[in-house]
């Protein structure tokens, strides 16, 4: 996918003024924030589960190579073929090769964010393979030629009317507005695609090392069709998704749907192990699993390693007041919200996404809801330190910081300069006591007044009080 994170600020302005988007985003609070809050108490000790989940993920990351090899061994023993892809281009090449080998003309896809990193659909289409997205949200986006704006609810930026218009236009059927009718229409269009596809492409929420299984959680059932009906199934996922045992998965599964959509469990949890055997009634004849690095291994062993714990639930973005106000597209690459503000600069280069680590008040809402306890605010701050170290800050910011830092270390100078500043500000505030404009701080005063100070600092007044 093209990276447009460099245009973040311009995008923010556009999104803040998009009334339709704002209306769509207003649903996040009740649907996701409220949804999560309503179900986390079902677990006796949610916090302890978070701690356990983080420990499971850390245990894997500590010896990721060993767990991946164990997974490969088990998956291979059960008849799957495991491929290793260092980059997105490698993923596209491997899938194209598998498609060519098996004479694939049509691929049905269930939701996968990793393939968004690679631009897989475009690559396959260039090879003459028709790709049909079958997750309802992703299907809508494929029709609209748009990218997902959320990792779990990809179409959260659209409303029912947009979708009704889109279906009427693309399906050439009478326009429907009832959600159930729209779903039925999509289902009727998609059903033949499942049946005629030669290849199914899915992601994987977890890879189970002890059994060599790929596990996916879905709500619509399309995932199960995609992974069992076509002759060939290709599961594509990040190398960090491996988990030691099925029992570990159960811990993570208690947290994933609750954190993501406020569900106690998703409608489907599919454990996909090996290709169709002689005694099996269904399943693909060929099962390929592609393990994708695409920048992930660069996080191993460093300060950002905890980011690889991520199980892609989306809770951080659901609870982020920045995401809630601008949606996902403004972030300019595959992953939005706090986790995206860390992954995007890490995967595509800090110089290509300079605003993302700074576009947070560090309010901490993401960190406290993360089911695997990723210290997201700390990671954002670490990226800011990297920006500083690499000289990627603007000259204005560098000068302001240097000057402020020098003064803060010299109390006498600091006292004098604050004394002067508060007097000037008091004067500028006039009788009303409000500043409507402040040179160099238009970011503040364009939309807000600044309450004027009283004209003397606390330390001045305190010293005077002690003397009197």
């Amino acid at each position: 996918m093209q990276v447009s994170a460099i245009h973040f600020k311009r995008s923010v302005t556009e999104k803040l003024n998009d009334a339709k988007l704002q209306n769509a985003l207003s649903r996040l609070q009740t649907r996701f924030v409220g949804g999560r809050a309503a179900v986390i108490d079902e677990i006796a000790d949610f916090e302890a589960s978070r701690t356990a989940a983080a420990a499971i993920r850390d245990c894997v990351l500590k010896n990721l190579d060993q767990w991946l090899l164990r997974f490969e061994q088990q998956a291979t023993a059960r008849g799957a073929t495991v491929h290793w892809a260092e980059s997105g281009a490698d993923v596209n090449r491997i899938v194209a090769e598998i498609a060519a080998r098996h004479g694939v003309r049509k691929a049905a896809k269930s939701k996968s964010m990793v393939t968004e990193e690679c631009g897989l659909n475009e690559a396959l289409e260039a090879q003459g393979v028709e790709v049909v997205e079958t997750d309802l949200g992703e299907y809508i986006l494929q029709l609209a030629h748009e990218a997902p704006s959320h990792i779990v609810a990809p179409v959260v930026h659209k409303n029912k009317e947009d979708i009704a218009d889109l279906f009427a236009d693309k399906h050439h059927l009478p326009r429907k507005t009832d959600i159930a009718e729209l779903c039925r229409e999509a289902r009727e269009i998609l059903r033949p695609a499942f049946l005629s596809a030669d290849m199914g492409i899915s992601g994987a929420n977890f890879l189970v090392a002890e059994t060599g299984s790929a596990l996916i959680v879905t709500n619509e059932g399309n995932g199960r069709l995609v992974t069992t009906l076509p002759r060939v199934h290709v599961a594509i996922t990040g190398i960090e998704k491996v988990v030691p045992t099925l029992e570990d998965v159960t811990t993570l599964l208690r947290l994933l749907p609750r954190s993501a959509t406020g569900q106690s469990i998703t409608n489907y949890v599919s454990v996909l192990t090996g290709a169709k055997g002689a005694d099996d009634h269904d399943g693909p004849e060929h099962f390929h699993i592609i393990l994708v690095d695409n920048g992930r291994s660069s996080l191993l062993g460093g300060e950002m390693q905890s980011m690889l714990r991520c199980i892609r639930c989306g809770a951080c973005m659901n609870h982020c007041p920045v995401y809630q106000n601008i949606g996902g597209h403004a972030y300019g690459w595959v992953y939005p919200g706090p986790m995206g503000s860390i992954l995007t600069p890490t995967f595509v280069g800090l110089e290509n996404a300079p605003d993302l680590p700074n576009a947070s008040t560090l309010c901490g809402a993401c960190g406290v809801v993360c089911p695997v306890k990723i210290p997201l605010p700390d990671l954002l701050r670490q990226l800011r330190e990297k920006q500083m170290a690499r000289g990627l800050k603007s000259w204005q910011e560098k000068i302001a910081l240097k000057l402020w830092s020098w003064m803060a270390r010299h109390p006498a100078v600091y006292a004098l300069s604050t004394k002067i500043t508060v007097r000037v500000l008091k004067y500028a505030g006039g009788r009303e006591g409000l500043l409507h404009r402040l040179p160099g701080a238009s970011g503040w005063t364009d939309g807000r007044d600044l309450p004027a100070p009283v004209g003397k600092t606390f330390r001045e007044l305190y010293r005077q009080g002690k003397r009197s």
Partner: protein
Amino acid sequence: MRVGFFVTCLVDAMRPSIGFAAIRLLEAAGCEVVVPEDQTCCGQPAYNSGDRGTAKTLALKVLGEFETCDYVVAPSGSCAGMIRMHYPDLWRDDPAILDRITLLSQRTYELTDFLVNVAGLETIPGHFHGTLTYHDSCSGLRELGVQNQPRALLAKMPGVALKEMVEATTCCGFGGAFAVKFGELSTRMADNKCSHIEAAGTDAIVAGDLGCLLNIEGRLRRRGNHTIQVLHIAEVLAGNVEDT
């Protein structure tokens, strides 16, 4: 007990009355209050801007100024959170300083947290008659667990009726430099907060951090709301505020 009062740079410059209110409360709780005169800033602006070096230097400066106090108290969850939660991280590689910094950080409290959980303030010196809504400032809430403390103190004031707004725990959009760097976004977040405040329909909006208060008041006034009072919790509790 001897309490070192950390004024905070914002209170020092923008609203000294909060500092005097806080001192009055600490004294009412039986503390001996000292105010180190050379204090400037806790270093959070540098820390959050990626300037770890400056943050480390300022942490040492604070350590030198407050090390002899039994406790450090700040009228801000943000600054107290910086000292308590982040100072040890800054000096994690220097064991000798880390030990001292850790001792200091463990003795550092946000004002209402200190009044309730350490000093056990029973009688509130101030009087306020009217309705209030309380905004939970992010660092105090999520780093220090400050949520019930200010409400418990307000509950001891007979004239105060607390009326909760929706999304009281959602960030107001201040975020230090964020408010200027991403002004439009920050303003929208403040605007959402102001709508919730106005919907609560109280006489005053109260919070424990001046940064949030400047942001909220700035947006309320620009929206044309000149009636609702915007107050620091210390001002309400100490009674420096005229009764409504």
